[in-house]
């Protein structure tokens, strides 16, 4: 009896992600949710610009490549055109919280019935490790080489908390994937975020505190530990909104 296998909603394409990158884990959790809910045939995913720009190669459902930050607007167009399809976006911290902050907030404010998977690894991976809106104070990146300085570079943005101020969102949860227990919690949250859309419950966003071993300059294991030590104190796990019905 198979206890664990690769989900059907992932293609045979080999992930291009760095060794130990948590994108791979989260892609699998999304695919597992799609498999379990039986929605692959009516799902349309929207890929961002970032390390996961090639996400359109990894899922077996119809996929759309969006311009940087605009996935929630593209998702709005798709969902308004095909309301009975399941529309999800998969976005990094630059895509969702920097250039795309306006689209993120307004899709949430409108309560668009879509699912957003937000990968927060506090850095811009694809372009070689620059500061993200979610980079921590003191964090050294290519564009904060002396450590992020609040005076000149401001404070990191807590997206779940920010969106929880709006009436529009139905479900906001912050999870992480740095150990088995947390991966399993993340799996449940992601499935719920898709289930909400199936049930027409409204805007659901899961913020996944993730790692970037390459640009953090750490081994994959140390990076997962850094999530516990540095990320979670600033980005506490938990449910930030859960509307009933």
């Amino acid at each position, binding site marked *: 009896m198979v206890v664990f296998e*690769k989900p059907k909603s992932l293609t045979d394409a080999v992930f291009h992600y760095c060794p130990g990158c948590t994108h791979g884990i989260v892609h699998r959790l999304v695919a597992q949710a799609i498999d379990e809910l039986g929605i692959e045939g009516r799902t349309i995913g929207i890929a961002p610009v970032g390390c996961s720009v090639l996400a359109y190669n990894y899922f077996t459902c119809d996929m759309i490549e969006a311009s940087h930050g605009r996935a929630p607007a593209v998702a709005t167009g798709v969902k308004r055109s095909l309301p009975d399809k399941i529309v999800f976006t998969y976005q990094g911290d630059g895509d969702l919280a920097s250039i795309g902050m306006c689209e993120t907030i307004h899709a949430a404010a409108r309560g668009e019935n879509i699912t957003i998977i937000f990968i927060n690894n506090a850095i811009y991976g694809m372009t070689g490790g620059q500061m993200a809106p979610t980079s921590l104070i003191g964090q050294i990146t290519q564009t904060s080489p002396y450590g992020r300085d609040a005076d000149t570079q401001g404070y990191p943005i807590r997206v779940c908390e920010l969106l929880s101020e709006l009436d529009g969102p139905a479900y906001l949860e912050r999870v992480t994937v740095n150990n*088995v227990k947390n991966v399993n919690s993340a799996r449940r949250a992601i499935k719920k975020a898709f289930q909400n859309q199936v049930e027409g419950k409204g805007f659901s966003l899961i913020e996944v505190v993730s790692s970037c071993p390459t640009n953090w300059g750490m081994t994959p294991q140390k990076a997962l530990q850094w999530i516990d030590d540095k990320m979670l104190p600033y980005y506490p796990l938990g449910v930030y909104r859960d509307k009933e019905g």
Partner: protein
Amino acid sequence: MAKLTFEEELCKGCGLCVAACPKHLLSLSQHRLNGKGHSPVEIEKPEECIGCAFCATMCPDCVITVEK
């Protein structure tokens, strides 16, 4: 009895499965490289595997299939 199958060519030698195994059964090969030049995961005492799938849960690359 639990059985692990490894898609070795997908393994990137990241070591997350090694750290996750509660029985410390996994290690990265010291003697072999896969086609991509990574040290793939291997299991020395497969008979001690309890099929918890912690390794597969932490694997970012769907390398491991777990059967019981």
